[in-house]
């Protein structure tokens, strides 16, 4: 399982890291860790645009694990 950790990063870096990850492998499932709602929304929107299904799991203390699946 790939995990991209974007905690502590602000826009546009989480979305850029998502794009980078899917450029390397466009099909393999991917988890993205975010720690603010703006990044959660941005990554979710970007992933949905690229045809990924996104499930957000609240990991507590403001951190969400976004499970991106084709």
């Amino acid at each position, binding site marked *: 399982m790939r995990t991209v950790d974007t*905690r*502590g*990063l*602000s*826009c*546009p*870096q989480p*979305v*850029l890291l998502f*794009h980078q990850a899917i450029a390397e492998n466009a099909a393999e499932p991917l988890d993205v860790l975010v*720690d*603010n*709602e*703006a990044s959660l*929304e941005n990554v979710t*929107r*970007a992933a949905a*645009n690229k045809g990924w299904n996104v499930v*957000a799991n*609240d990991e507590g*203390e*403001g951190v969400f694990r976004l499970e991106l699946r084709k």
Partner: protein
Amino acid sequence: MKKNLFATTPGVIVVGAVIGLIAVGLQKLGNPANMGICVACFERDVAGGLGLHRAAIVQYLRPEIMGLVLGSLVAAIAAKEFRPRGGSAPIVRFVLGMIAAMGALVFLGCPWRAILRLAGGDGNALLGLAGLATGIWFGTLFFKRGYSLGRSNSQSVVSGALFPVIIVCLLLLYLIFPQVPGQPQSGPLFYSVKGPGSQHAPFIASLGLAFVIGIIAQRSRFCTMGAFRDLFLFRYTHLFLGLAAMLVAAFAANALTGGLKFGFEGQPVAHSDFLWNYLGMVTAGLAFALAGGCPGRQLFMAGEGDSDAGIFALGMLVGAAMAHNLGTASSGTGIGIYGMQATIIGFIVCLIIGFVHSRRA
């Protein structure tokens, strides 16, 4: 988790339109023409009100600045999004804030005012917006090279709350030492008796309407810099549609209320030096991009507990004061005596910051 309607594309379009309408409303209520809300200009006025610069025509503790931050703070707390954080290259952000303010004051406006100026018919705003887009485009080149100021960390509640507390202190100062009609000073505060600083909406309207903007902008993540950046970087139109809605709404409001005046010459609080209108905003746009938000967005993030954004805003406050003290700020008659130097030096400093913080540099 619950859906945040403001952060949908229709949501951000409505928010942009509401900001445009409120801005024109504030102009009708007394704010300077095409300056219903300008974060750079108003931070400059706040700096003047505190006596950080002594340009007598731009001194007023603008309640709009306080409303924007406090609205965002309340919205963030209500949505459980207030999260104290910071520690991502603070001094770099301070310097970027200074450069951003100085560049914006060569053009005479932040991105919000560039939109409001265009919506009022000021053709010079086209140069400013083109410069803004160019500067942000330079910023996206750095992002493609892996530019990052580093991760922020969770911080204490005090750290996250300090910027809003400073804002509350400004509000208290304003209330304790209110403007005395015709007097340039009230206690320690300075109040313009003529010029743009003397033109302002009633206190309650300024504070209240900006508070509303603070709430909806925090919820929607409205950002004029992000609008161009996401368009260039990802071909995303989400935020750009919000910006476009602000322009359309303000233009329509001006058209309906007789606020349109097309042309380049004699525009309110503006000069028509094409080259420096453009270049001033190139520098400012690059600084906004490297710092991760337009001046308004930085205030909203500061309200959410982001102390790095607070430091950027304080950098803008100091930069705006310096712009007047050092003669780099423009006026209606043209650019300042050292406006060119400030624009070029600021741009070079931004380039250095960009290269040094790019992984693949």
